[in-house]
């Protein structure tokens, strides 16, 4: 058939993996990705969690978006071209309308990435995921390989058995999922066992990832934040985990450093937060990213729309600059930006501001930089002149 003066192409239909294919050929989608935090409530009570509220917190439940409100947001998601939504929490499966929302989303032609602890996966849900596949691998966080360690973290009797039962149901129904670890003093001796067990899961196509440099409470309920600080791994211990596969680590770091190492300057947002995506929290506030809940950075969707936030609100947020001398003298001049998790969200959780250096993250970045040979003992990254040469030499060095 003639199209734009061209005769018919070879194939009518092409398979695409939207995460890998350059489907949009450089075009920018108004909304490329969206996280939806369906609830902050969770049936576990993990020691290190930055967000969880008790599963029976009725106050929180009352404030949550209704089924209809979530459906309206999802309809707008479609109109903005988004193809993939992440359902997270809290524990997203805790919502009584989870199944309804999941089917609704899939029928809109949206892929669903589910973050879960797997404890609430029933035969019925596994069968649903098999019949109507999420089209994204479910991601399950595992808190230990033994009942004692697992439940020492979750502080919920029966959670170990429920989680492994849930994962076995996914296996039986051939529902693709991957696992991730959370490394705490309670389970850190079980890494080898975890790695061996995880390797048997047929869909594990990437190295295991671990959360270990824990975030403090996103809502800044500081009693719990102090407890989380005590669970954080030391930068040196973290380095051991990151370099578990030394060769892969160096290869990835060379590639990473070639792209992302430079001082960020006084602009607060050097990441892509809020540019073509964001996170809707359980109560209808649209945030530039999952972690940033500073009241000045969130947009109430109950009084507006995703489109308005993306076009008018987030661009203003992204223009924000630091005026904190401490930040300007350190973070703004630091070439380790690519290795450091310092960002407005982390600063908010840690200090209640958007631009205060987070010492722990700074120590983690310095430990990595020293290991990679980018810094000498005693050097401070923001004082290094000629950092470009160091990066160049590192990137070009043979492994």
């Amino acid at each position, binding site marked *: 058939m003639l199209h734009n003066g061209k005769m018919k192409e070879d*194939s009518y239909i092409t398979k695409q993996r939207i995460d890998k294919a350059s489907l*949009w050929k450089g075009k920018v989608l108004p909304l490329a990705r969206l996280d939806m935090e369906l609830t902050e409530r969770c049936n576990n009570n993990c020691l290190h969690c930055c967000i969880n509220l008790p599963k029976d917190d009725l106050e929180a439940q009352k404030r949550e978006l209704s089924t209809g409100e979530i459906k309206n947001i999802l309809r707008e998601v479609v109109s903005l*071209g988004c193809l993939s939504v992440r359902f997270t929490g809290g524990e997203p499966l805790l919502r009584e309308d989870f199944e309804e929302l999941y089917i609704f989303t899939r029928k809109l032609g949206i*892929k669903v990435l589910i973050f879960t602890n797997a404890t609430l996966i029933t035969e019925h849900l596994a069968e649903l995921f098999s019949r109507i596949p999420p089209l994204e691998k479910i991601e399950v966080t595992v808190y230990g390989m033994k009942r004692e360690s697992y439940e020492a973290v979750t502080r919920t009797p029966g959670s170990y058995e429920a989680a492994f039962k849930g994962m076995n149901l996914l296996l039986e129904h051939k529902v693709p999922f991957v696992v991730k670890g959370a490394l705490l003093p309670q389970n850190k001796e079980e890494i080898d066992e975890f790695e061996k067990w995880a390797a048997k899961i047929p869909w594990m196509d990437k190295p295991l990832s671990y959360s270990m440099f824990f975030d403090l409470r996103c809502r800044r309920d500081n009693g719990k934040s102090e407890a989380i600080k005590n669970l954080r791994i030391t930068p040196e211990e973290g380095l051991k985990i990151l370099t578990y596969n030394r060769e892969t680590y160096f290869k990835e770091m060379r590639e990473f450093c070639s792209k992302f190492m430079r001082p960020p300057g006084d602009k607060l947002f050097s990441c892509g937060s809020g540019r073509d995506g964001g996170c809707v929290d359980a109560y209808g506030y649209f945030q530039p990213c999952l972690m940033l809940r500073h009241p000045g950075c969130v947009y109430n969707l109950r009084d507006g729309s995703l489109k308005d936030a993306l076009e008018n609100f987030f661009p203003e947020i992204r223009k924000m600059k630091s005026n904190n001398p401490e930040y300007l003298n350190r973070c703004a001049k630091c070439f380790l930006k690519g290795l450091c998790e310092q960002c407005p969200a982390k600063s908010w959780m840690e200090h209640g501001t958007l631009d205060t250096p987070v010492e722990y993250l700074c120590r983690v970045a310095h430990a990595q930089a020293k290991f990679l040979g980018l810094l000498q003992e005693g050097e401070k990254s923001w004082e290094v002149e000629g950092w470009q040469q160091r990066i160049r030499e590192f990137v070009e060095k043979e492994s």
Partner: protein
Amino acid sequence: MEAKVSLDMIYAPSENVVAREVQGEFIIIPITSGVGDLEDEIFTLNETGKSIWAKLDGKKALKDVAGELSQEFGAPVEEIEKDCLGLAEELAKRRMLVEVK
């Protein structure tokens, strides 16, 4: 799975897929398992496929679809019939189209 298609057959999009047009790309997204080949893939239609898909309404036979498109594009009907058969075969074998009897 081979799908036998002929110009007398009538097709409609399966209820097990959703078609979306995003940034000029025409995408078919499987809803249920058994559609397509792998669970994590979506499908895009080329311009020819897109024009034909839009006319598969479960009422018109492929030959009528080809006739309409021939008039719209001013192209030989024989060639468009070949396109209709080709697309219908590709989509039917992936269960993205269903035959309406």
